[in-house]
């Protein structure tokens, strides 16, 4: 009797635990559905051609998001242009030249911390080293702040992807008499290309929604501006400003901007995933 009672209790406990795991998963996915649902609903109702052709409006009138969209693109492109080469080179050192170095393990540790360090702190850092000496907010400061966020992502994926390249490839190339630099650039890079591109895409996805580091570097700009030396508009900062404003038109535009950012980020991560997929299965 005691045995069957114990058995029943164990089964009951197991049933409860299993039920809870299902509840937890539904709960977790429910948020995704809720947030995306609201975002699509609110964002699409404000989406029109006007959004992409007109400047941000003064309070109380209609307008679009053209200047912040262009600003975001400029800031992102420059950030990637600065961050990618640095990240790739650092990752290359860690995987190719200094694989067993003490330096490599230290850099890996620090890089992993930078990877999840609060982005607002990066904003403060760039404020101190660029905005204060220059005397004003500027687009280039915003780009550098974003580049600091790009670097750790690219370092991490470059190193991981190069470590996946079989050593036999390198040995074969070396046996043909290639110097190390040529082995790395012509053989290892080519074998790891898809993964490295994935890393850059993930980095773009990460910075395209970043707001905190831009607040006090690139600031914001209501007008059409390509000047990197002047404050520059960007989608996230405009969303921040508009969402917290009391004006209905601005709030509507904030939702639309949020939808644009989310769709961009989701598209980038899907693209990155499909690029990385064949590498994982083989």
């Amino acid at each position, binding site marked *: 009797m005691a045995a069957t009672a114990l058995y029943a209790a164990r089964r009951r406990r197991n049933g409860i635990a299993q039920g809870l795991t299902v509840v*937890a*998963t539904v709960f977790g996915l429910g948020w995704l559905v809720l947030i995306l649902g609201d975002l699509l609903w609110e964002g699409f109702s404000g989406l029109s051609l006007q959004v992409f052709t007109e400047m941000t409006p003064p309070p109380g009138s209609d307008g679009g998001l053209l200047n912040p969209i262009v600003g975001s693109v400029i800031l992102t492109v420059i950030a990637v242009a600065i961050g990618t080469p640095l990240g*790739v080179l650092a990752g290359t050192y860690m995987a190719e*030249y200094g694989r067993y170095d003490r330096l490599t393990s230290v850099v890996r540790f620090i890089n992993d911390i930078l990877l999840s360090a609060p982005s607002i702190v990066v904003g403060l850092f760039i404020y101190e080293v660029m905005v204060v000496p220059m005397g004003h907010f500027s687009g280039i400061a915003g780009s550098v702040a974003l580049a600091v966020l790009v670097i*750790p992502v690219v370092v991490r994926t470059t190193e991981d992807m190069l470590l996946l390249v079989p050593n036999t490839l390198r040995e074969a190339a070396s046996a043909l008499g290639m*110097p190390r630099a*040529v082995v790395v650039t012509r053989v290892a890079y080519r074998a790891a290309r898809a993964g490295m591109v994935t890393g850059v895409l993930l980095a773009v996805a990460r910075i395209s929604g970043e707001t905190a580091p831009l607040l006090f570097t690139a600031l914001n700009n209501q007008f059409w501006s390509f000047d990197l030396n002047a404050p520059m508009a960007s989608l996230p900062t405009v969303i921040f400003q508009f969402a917290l404003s009391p004006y209905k038109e601005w709030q509507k535009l904030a939702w639309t901007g*949020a939808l644009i950012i989310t769709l961009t980020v989701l598209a980038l991560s899907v693209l990155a995933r499909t690029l990385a997929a064949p590498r994982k299965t083989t």
Partner: protein
Amino acid sequence: MADVALHDQLVRPKSKPRMSVMDRLRLGDAVFHALTRTASIMVLVILGGVMIALVQGALPAFRTFGLSFLYEQHWNPVTERFGALAPIYGTIVTSLIAMVIAVPVGLLIAMFLTELCPLWLRRPIGIAIELLAGIPSIIYGIWGLFVFAPFLQTYVQPALIETFGYVPGLSSLFAGPPYGIGVLTSGLILAVMVLPFIASISRDVFEAVPPVLKEAAYGLGCTTWEVVRNVVLPFTRVGVVGGIMLGLGRALGETMAVTFVIGNAHRISSSILAPGTTISATIANEFTEATGDLYTSALIALGFILFIITFIVLACARYLLLRLEQRVGA
């Protein structure tokens, strides 16, 4: 002598053009090596630069207020008296609320994904969880402000006040009118943000358990729950704690999602329904409006404190995850 001649012949290429090609390649190699090494040192320089810049910026504030900056509650730009206690308190309480919810739920999701989920469903659910992790924090912020906070204000918070408002011990936690925005709302939003990180890291960690161990336990007649409780969790304890701390690091430093819904009130209230502030929200809200060097410096000092706290948490997290990796590898 013959030996030397032979050796020379072997080492030195015969023709001049070939020698210059070799030299060029060797030079290129050395340059490339130096370049990559410099780049990886740059990563260290950046971290060092962040530290130095923050310390330098924070120095005036620390010099003026000394250690009292850490435990003073005043935050008055007019009289230029600043203390970081309210933001520090807010940061810790919101993160605590987030972890209390996200840790159990995240672990249960990981258990579902590794032990119970049918194989064909694993990948879609895994991807969905990762998408949740990829949504930029400002989206959580705007959603929290326009959808979640009003919902809490109309439905959840009145019920909480009704239920716990007169229970001794709990009444002060749930005191005051339902504002919608406040500490509890921020904690909940943070929980949703951190949840996918904890879930996906725990899943990866659970998957590292050697199948033999689990099969042996199942073979003894253990139930799924018993296997997870007595085999998987003990084996992965270090990694799970590492994953949780990684999530905690995110929660502590999260800015935009919190800034929208915390209310930015520099006071410490016993009620979690009241508005408050966190370190990052204070910086985001006030930095561009800060007039006066001391005000700016106080905000940078806040950033420095945040950086130190998250640095310690993240370093512990990485260390623990590394330890698990080594054990699984061994």
